[in-house]
């Protein structure tokens, strides 16, 4: 049974063109005898427009090619966020995938697949840790791309699954603005394809102008580059491994494609070296891939009970795995195999107890000099791996690590508003110097002191809101 509009569209097939079209075609092109010049006024306008376009293009080229500058808040921070929902074909089975692109970062969606033609109905509650929440700038625009017929989006409150809805954006036909209050959310995206629906969850941390360094000094990094012959590289610590590319295609246009295959003879999955990485280490994904489906196969396993790369992490169970990745780029696609040895040793920073996580403070003194009463408050909050707050004027944030009573702060960033009077900017400068070069801290029930070679910062517990 078809719909009415389809029947009507079919009726167009009854229309026929005139009989003399072919005769006219045989008489040769009519519109290419050399275009006559447009009127003088039109030519002047066209010239001016061309000049303006030339200037604009020069501007864009300069922006693209100028030497990189350290990104700080207030300069050029408007990351647009694009969720790409696509189907990848693997072993004759179509898999729904979701990736989130934020600037040059790629985040895979942890998902539950629902009502999928080849999989039936599967519901797997997503499982997040503190480190999974991706910092996003509040007010960013979220848009959708890919091959889904439509995409529904909703912000939810993290907690017990199923999560509570905060706001539903409905169908993402146009970009929507993430201008909810700062805090942690789960971005729930449901893609609708002809084959079925699939839902993906991205834990995000909306920050008010504070941005957004890579939080993961300890992460393993998977980098994809999709030029003529696509590549995948896995980096961890000093180790690096190139992915074994078994198939790829690269199309210059719709009729000129290069296809490559590697015929491996040692069974499936193919033999690869195994890069040692602590079990549970997070995977950061970089490069220009537009869709990724990843799967860990335990070594020797022929494909049964594989471990999906959900949550972007090395498997928690130590052992050897082969990581199979099906990746699409704008003009190419490829399948890669990489070997990973998930080791039981985890980094000390993960094992050590972080006493600072979850605490909130207010600056009390700098090098023993108390902050004047009535001054704009300077705050400091800690999550498991990030610190941040307000310096009296601007928001700031940075990833940090502790080991015992040692502390190290990297990738410090802040907004860049100017505030005058009351010594606000001077205190902010001392705060940044103290935090940037901090080496140790001392924590009591009612005081936190952070010490660097040049500065000592003393904080008192923040008043409850």
């Amino acid at each position, binding site marked *: 049974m078809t719909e009415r509009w389809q029947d*009507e569209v079919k009726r167009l097939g009854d229309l026929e063109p005139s009989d003399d079209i*072919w005769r006219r075609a045989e008489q040769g092109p009519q519109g290419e005898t050399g275009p006559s010049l447009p009127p003088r006024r039109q030519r002047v306008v066209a010239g001016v427009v061309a000049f303006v376009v030339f200037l604009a293009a020069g501007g864009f080229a300069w922006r693209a090619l100028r030497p990189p500058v350290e990104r700080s808040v207030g300069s050029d921070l408007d990351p647009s966020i694009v969720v790409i929902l696509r189907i990848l074909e693997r072993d004759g089975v179509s898999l729904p995938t979701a990736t989130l692109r934020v600037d040059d970062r790629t985040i895979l969606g942890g998902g539950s697949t629902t009502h999928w033609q080849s999989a039936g109905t599967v519901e797997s509650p997503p499982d997040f840790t503190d480190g999974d929440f991706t910092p996003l700038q509040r007010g960013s625009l979220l848009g959708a791309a890919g091959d889904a017929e439509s995409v529904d989006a909703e912000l939810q409150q993290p907690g017990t699954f199923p999560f509570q809805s905060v706001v539903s954006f409905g169908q993402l036909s146009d970009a929507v603005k993430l201008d909810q209050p700062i805090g942690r959310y789960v971005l729930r995206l449901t893609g609708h394809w002809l084959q079925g629906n699939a839902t993906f969850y991205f834990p995000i941390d909306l920050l008010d102008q504070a941005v957004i360094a890579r939080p993961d000094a300890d992460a393993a990094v998977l980098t994809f580059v999709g030029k003529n012959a696509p590549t995948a590289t896995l980096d961890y610590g000093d180790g690096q491994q190139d992915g074994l590319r078994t198939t790829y295609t690269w199309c210059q246009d719709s009729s000129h494609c290069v296809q490559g295959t590697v*015929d491996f003879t040692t069974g499936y999955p193919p033999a690869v070296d195994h890069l040692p990485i602590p079990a549970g280490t997070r995977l950061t994904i970089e490069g220009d891939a537009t869709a990724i489906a990843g799967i860990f196969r335990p070594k020797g396993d022929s494909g049964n009970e594989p471990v999906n790369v959900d949550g972007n992490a090395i498997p928690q169970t130590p052992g050897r795995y082969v990581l199979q990745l099906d990746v699409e780029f704008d003009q190419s696609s490829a399948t890669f195999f990489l070997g990973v040895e998930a080791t039981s040793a985890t980094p000390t920073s993960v094992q050590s107890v972080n006493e600072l996580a979850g605490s909130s403070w207010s600056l009390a003194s700098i090098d023993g000099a108390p902050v004047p009463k009535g001054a704009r408050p300077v705050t400091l909050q800690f999550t498991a791996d990030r610190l941040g707050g307000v310096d009296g004027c601007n928001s700031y944030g940075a990833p940090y690590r502790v080991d015992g009573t040692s502390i190290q702060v990297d990738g410090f960033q802040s907004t860049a508003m100017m505030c005058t009077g009351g010594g606000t900017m001077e205190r902010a400068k001392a705060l940044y110097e103290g935090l940037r070069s901090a080496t140790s801290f001392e924590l009591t029930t009612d005081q936190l002191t952070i010490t660097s070679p040049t500065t000592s910062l003393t904080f008192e517990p923040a008043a409850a809101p």
Partner: protein
Amino acid sequence: MMLEVEERAVERDRGSSHDFAQLFRDDGPGLWRTIYAFTGGRRDIAEDVTAEAFARGLAYADTIRDPLPWLYRTAFRLAQEELRRERRRRAPEPWDQQDPPEVAGLMQALRELSPKQRAAIVLRYEADLPVAEVARRMGIAQPTVRVHVHRGRAHLRELLGDNEVDDD
């Protein structure tokens, strides 16, 4: 491990051997109907553009690798230029032409869609082409075709009503 790497370039032959007369018999009416929809029912533009696209195809046969998508893309471009030219000339509203009665309701609804949505809908549902082929003929990416088809379909469903559905 023995690795054997095979690469092959896939490129269609260039050539003057394309039989444009046969191509016109097979695909000319479909091309005309697509442009007819693309222009929102402008029979005159559709005929001029179809004739001109085939004329240029004949003239440049030696350099055309894959003639059918080439003809479509040329026809879309010419039709768009003509519509733009008319707008600049502030030509009278084109819809004063009489639509054939059997498609009058459809054409009225199609005019509520964008030209690319109209073309995508006609290629997908009148010519029954797969999305990849629609993309090839329109010279745009497959996901973009899906977006045009999805939005066009939703709009037509709204305008013409539906009486359900089992093939989607």
